């Protein structure tokens, strides 16, 4: 029959065509994959080699730093060290290497740069290296020589992994690192900077009081939540502030979460979703009214002397930052944030972590220079609009009493801090006005 004969020809032809089609597709896909593999390999090789180069430069700068005589050369070398350390940090983070193997190395390199930065400030301030600094620098240099040599050898032997790393490998420690306990591998750096160990292990200074039990914590939590909401115990939390976590919902079904510290029963945070998504800065009267609502609430839960500093008005809430005021000076580190629902003025959020970490008894001497003298230190390019006193962080462990000047130049607003004891310009912030509030950077 014709149909059968036709089929007997057509079917094999179709199959053959499909097979050829698939085969050629497979070949082109394979070529494409090879291209990508080559590119990836080249990219990773380049990263290893650039890292090796920057490590070499870092080691050399540390070497020279230990024998340099003049202050100006010290500062330049410290600056180089900071720069090379930043490059190394960035390059290490791009390598396809196990995090479990390299986390200590990454930490070490970051801290070398961070430490160099603090030394720069020291030297610029007229001080010389202490004997602790000298011995730390010496052991840093030693370690950098080791790392640099090791990497150079590995690259020379081709003992580097240049392929895609999967999630499993990222979290796997290889044999050679599993034995060392990691902490002995790198010298401990004692200094005061944003990435120092001191910051990572900071104790909450503002956490006062005795241990409370779960029921007491629940009672405290219930005092904070909006009218009609219900919460119950969720879990213990062993984060940086050990806490009892509670969860529940408001009358109209929105989620609500509360965390109460085990020591003292302080609220760490409370979060509930807002009822609407109103955004945009309200007028000055409204801002004032909201500020007062937050201040009253904080007072009612035991936070006295809090003044509103910055606010954001987005996503149905007014998020207002309150800082503790000490004898007329605003202590920016002692920060509590309050979320106020724009539709009904209820308090739907609070975040007291900063306050709990930093609030302590503070003793500051009277300013050594007057407001007028401080004004003279502000750049001539700026017009001063407002002034006050503030206690601001200089390093993670130290604070200073400063004059705070709110200034402007052209279309931009700035805040300048002048140290009230030394007259040094401690910091400058740019104020960013967005549709939803203000930020300082």
């Amino acid at each position, binding site marked *: 029959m014709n149909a*059968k004969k036709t*089929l007997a020809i057509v*079917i094999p032809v*179709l*199959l053959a065509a*499909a*097979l050829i*089609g*698939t085969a050629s597709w497979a070949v082109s896909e394979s070529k494409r994959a090879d291209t990508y593999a080559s590119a990836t390999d080249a990219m990773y090789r380049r990263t290893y080699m650039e890292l090796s180069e920057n490590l070499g430069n870092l080691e050399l700068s540390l070497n020279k730093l230990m024998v340099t005589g003049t202050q100006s050369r010290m500062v330049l070398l410290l600056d180089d060290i900071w720069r090379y350390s930043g490059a190394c*940090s*960035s390059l290490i*983070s*791009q*390598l*396809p290497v196990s*995090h479990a193997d390299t*986390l*200590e190395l*990454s930490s070490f390199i*970051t*801290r070398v740069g*961070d430490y160099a930065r603090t030394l720069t400030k020291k030297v610029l301030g007229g001080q010389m290296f202490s004997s602790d600094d000298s011995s730390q620098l010496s052991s840093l240099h030693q370690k950098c020589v080791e790392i640099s040599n090791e990497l150079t050898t590995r690259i020379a032997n081709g003992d580097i992994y240049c392929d*895609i*790393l*999967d*999630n499993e*490998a*990222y*979290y*796997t*420690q290889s044999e050679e690192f599993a034995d060392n306990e990691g902490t002995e591998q790198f010298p401990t750096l004692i200094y005061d900077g*944003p*990435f120092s160990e001191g910051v*990572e292990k900071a104790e909450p200074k503002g956490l006062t009081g005795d241990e409370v039990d779960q029921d007491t914590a629940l009672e405290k939590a219930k005092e904070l939540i909006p009218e009609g909401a219900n919460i119950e115990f969720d*879990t213990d*939390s*062993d*984060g*940086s502030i050990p806490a009892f*976590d509670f*969860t529940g919902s408001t009358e109209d079904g929105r*989620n609500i*979460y509360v*965390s109460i510290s085990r020591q003292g029963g302080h609220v*760490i945070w409370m*979060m509930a*979703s807002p009822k609407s998504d109103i955004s945009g800065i309200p007028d000055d009267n409204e801002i004032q009214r909201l500020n007062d609502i937050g201040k009253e609430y904080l007072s009612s839960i035991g936070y006295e002397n809090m003044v509103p500093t910055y606010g*954001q008005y*987005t*996503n149905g809430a007014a*998020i207002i930052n309150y800082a503790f005021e000490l004898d007329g000076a605003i202590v920016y580190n002692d920060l509590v*944030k309050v979320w106020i629902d724009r539709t009904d003025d209820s308090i739907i*959020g609070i*975040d007291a*972590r*900063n306050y709990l970490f930093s609030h302590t008894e503070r003793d500051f001497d009277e300013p050594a220079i007057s407001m007028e003298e401080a004004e003279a230190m502000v750049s001539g390019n700026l017009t001063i609009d407002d002034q006050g006193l503030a206690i601001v962080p200089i390093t993670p462990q130290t604070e200073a009493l400063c004059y705070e000047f709110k200034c402007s130049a052209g279309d931009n607003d700035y805040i300048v801090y002048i140290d009230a004891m030394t007259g040094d310009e401690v910091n400058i912030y740019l104020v960013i006005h967005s*549709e*939803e509030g203000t*930020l300082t*950077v």
Partner: protein
Amino acid sequence: MKKHTPSGVKLKMALTLMLLAALLLAHTGTALAATVLRYGSRGDQVYTLQTKLKRWGYYSGSVDGIYGYQTYTAVKSFQRKNGLTVDGIVGPATSAALGMTLGSASTSSGSGGYSSNDLNLLARLIYGEARGESYKGQVAVAAVVLNRVRSSKFPNSIAGVIYQSGAFSVVADGQINLSPDQTAINAARDAMNGWDPTGGCLYYYNPAKTTNKWMLSRPISVRIGQHVFCK
């Protein structure tokens, strides 16, 4: 010539068709969420594509989020009408013409010194990693990223932490490119405003799915939903 019974012929035809179908399927796109939509793609972005094409009269099939043949021809008609390369693939040029941004969310101003691109990226990570979790669980994932930025052990930027080789499986399999929902965006924003439900954790895992020894040896801080958070 052998005599084939009618049922034998039918069987051969059925087998042939099955084989052809199987070979054809091998050519289709994978389930990777990509920044390009093509025949075989699936997901929210295809759904949006179909809705738009239907509204403008190019597409008359069902809006089901599956990029099939009808969607393919509709895209080609659109491309032809708009002077684009007629290849049936929605890449950067076609998506721009459609008014679709593939793989990005509606942005808003950033907070805490981070940019709106950072907010966007963080929201996409949350959506990829934790979209089934409670709101607190979603914020927790973002908080881990921000804690890593602050830590000396990890890269010093949000993009650096998220895109670090091997760190998050949703980057490797492309889920990071899915459009986040409003919950994920809100969660990213709350995390950037400082809410850290984990109390400083740097790692998290799903105990029902992880067998990694190193991860399991980390000290546990808190459990939120399906994830356990560690320092």
